[in-house]
């Protein structure tokens, strides 16, 4: 337990460096990954990282040929970025010169470069006197091999990404949202794209050692995609994505340090995926639970309003007065039941739901009386329903016998603005009579004719 504590809170010297580096990497990739996601270029990051592999092998060969140690990290990373960017260049070239679409072009480049990389690494193993063992750690990543210089490199790149995102925030935003408008302003759209891709490749290359080239893409996409569930604002999305990236890196690297058999890259991705799943379900802005509960609330409201309108229409019929001057009296349960196609169970449930909203004064199983607020709500709902019906008949040329069903679904979502617009159009203030006559939905309503 003590070790867990020491690793998680960076008290342990051996793991402090690794965990801190991974957190920084997570923050940087969350940031730049958000722009990549909004530019709809997520897979470009994947093509880029896979295209890094041949560069690592080739750089090793060159360095050995030059008589240096083949394992100098800066040298390997330079090689990786060269072929990585070459891979991106090929994707753009294939797309522009032929009619092959983006996804296919990326698939081709990704697999061919990776294949090339595997072949080059194979060749490297056969070079005599050069210990090429360990190059394949770049494929899956190996955080334990990181040293202080790697940390400095990572921190430098992360700082660069942070500064560039802050300075070019407005430029990147417009580029991602409306490229055509950006070009009409005379912006060098291609150069901006290049800057963005250069930042992505910088993060990818320095992340190769920690996460590996296969999984780095997860670090770029998942925090950004998860952040989108929490906010509708780009600035907040960047902050949340960076935070999610950082937390994934922190938990992933710590876990991997505690359980040496588990590679950090894999754990980081799994942690990020767990956060993504949580965000997908519970995200404040667009999570599934929030959307579902909004739907359920609307359905309940619709049911309640149907009940209130049914009661109101019965009152109208029984009292035979103008709709504006009705008095609130009890109506019988059976009468309400006959007006619509509800089962007794469903109707009882609706009454319960309306009761929770204080719309019901009393209900003894036989008779039902609305409360003051329920009666007011009933009048309002009935009025909206009829306004909409009359609009459909007079302005949209829909037969009176068909409007009731349409109005049934619309009346619940009419905003005050729309109601005012309807009043203006129809020149009405009070509650109009039903345009298809009162009574049962569908049957009977038709032959009673229209009131217009």
């Amino acid at each position, binding site marked *: 337990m003590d070790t867990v504590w020491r690793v998680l809170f960076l008290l342990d010297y051996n793991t402090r460096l690794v965990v801190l580096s991974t957190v920084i990497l997570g923050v940087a990739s969350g940031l730049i990954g958000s722009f990549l996601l*909004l530019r*709809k270029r997520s897979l470009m990051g994947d093509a880029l990282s896979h295209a890094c592999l041949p560069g690592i092998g080739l750089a090793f060969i060159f360095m050995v040929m030059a008589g240096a140690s083949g394992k100098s990290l800066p040298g390997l990373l330079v090689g990786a970025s060269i072929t990585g960017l070459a891979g991106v260049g090929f994707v753009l070239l294939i797309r522009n010169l032929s*009619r092959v679409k983006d996804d296919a072009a990326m698939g081709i480049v990704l697999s061919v470069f990776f294949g090339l990389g595997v072949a080059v690494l194979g060749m490297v193993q056969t070079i005599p006197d050069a210990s090429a063992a360990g190059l394949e750690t770049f494929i899956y990543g190996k955080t334990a091999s990181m040293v202080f210089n790697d940390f400095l490199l990572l921190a430098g790149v992360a700082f660069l990404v942070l500064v560039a995102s802050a*300075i*070019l*925030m*407005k*430029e990147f*935003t*417009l580029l*991602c*949202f*409306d490229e*055509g*408008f950006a*070009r*009409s*302003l*005379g912006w060098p759209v291609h150069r901006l794209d290049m800057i963005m891709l250069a930042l992505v490749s910088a993060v990818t290359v320095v992340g190769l050692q920690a996460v590996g080239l296969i999984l780095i893409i997860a670090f770029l996409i998942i925090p950004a995609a998860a952040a*989108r569930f929490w*906010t*509708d*604002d*780009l600035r907040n*999305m960047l902050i949340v994505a960076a935070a999610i990236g950082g937390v994934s890196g922190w938990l992933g690297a710590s876990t991997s340090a505690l359980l040496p058999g588990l590679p950090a890259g894999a754990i980081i991705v799994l942690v990020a995926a767990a956060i993504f799943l949580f965000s997908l379900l519970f995200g404040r802005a667009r999570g599934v639970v929030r959307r579902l509960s909004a739907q359920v609330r609307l359905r309940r409201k619709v049911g309640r309003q149907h009940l209130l309108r049914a009661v109101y229409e019965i009152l109208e019929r029984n009292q035979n007065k103008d709709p504006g001057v009705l008095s609130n009296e009890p109506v019988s349960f059976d009468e309400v039941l006959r007006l619509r196609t509800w089962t007794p169970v469903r109707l009882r449930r609706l009454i319960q739901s309306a009761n929770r909203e204080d719309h019901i004064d009393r209900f003894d199983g036989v008779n039902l009386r609305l409360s003051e607020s329920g009666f007011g709500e009933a009048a309002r709902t009935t009025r909206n329903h009829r306004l909409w019906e009359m609009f459909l008949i007079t302005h949209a040329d829909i037969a009176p016998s068909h409007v009731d069903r349409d109005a049934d679904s619309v009346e619940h979502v009419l905003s005050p603005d729309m109601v005012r*617009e309807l009043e203006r159009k129809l020149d009405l203030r009070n509650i109009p009579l039903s345009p298809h006559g009162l009574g049962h939905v569908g049957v009977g309503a038709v032959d009673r004719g229209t009131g217009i």
Partner: protein
Amino acid sequence: MSTQDLLFGEGDASEHSPHAPVSIHDLTVAYHRKPVLWDVDLDIPEGKLVGIIGPNGAGKSTLIKACLDLVPRASGEVRFFGKTYRKQRSLVGYVPQRESVDWDFPVSARDVVAMGLYGKIGWCRPVGRKHRELAGQALDHVGIGHLADRQISQLSGGQQQRVFLARALAQNAQIYFMDEPFAAVDAATERAIVGLLKELKEKGRTVLVVHHDLATVSQYFDWVILLNMRVVDCGPTEKVFTAENLKKTYGGKLTLLAEAGNALQQG
């Protein structure tokens, strides 16, 4: 020399009028070597509401995009008050088609309108409070100021269109290009757009609008360009918007141009 000149021996059209807000000369545009616009020669007079009319695939959007250097020109040139677009950018405002962007994007209506000010703000500088206020005023102008801080996916189609118009207003341009602003909008938005067009005209601005609804052309525009891969006719609405011209624009007489285009593409 354009084919029209060859065919009809019309006079020297190579002079750009330095006073015309938009002067298009001998413009041909091709996608993948397939021409979609042939030999367009136009001078748009100042302070007019100009409708660009034509069937689907007639090259209406392409004409706008070619003017704004958004698609490469196979030949020809476009001048704004006698100078190239590159030099006159600040005088030109652009309203792209609403479908051209992803409305799920995490920005508010105000953020989008502020983009119209980016040209003035300049590179690498943040959007300040003053700019955000200006954006709010532009939104007020199109009647949706109260929705300024809504995320754009929560707006109706008509409201989204008004956001785009507000962005163009924020550009405060002399010449406006609008790509189908009336497409699929509600009646209130249509009224708002028409009111805005009239207002821009009164201020002496020139507005070119790609338009689909033939029934409203003579009501909205005082100048029309009838387009079907070439300019069928162009001029004051009451003179040019005739049944005969419409037949030429929408009738199937242009298969020759289309076939020639296909042949060029395969050749």
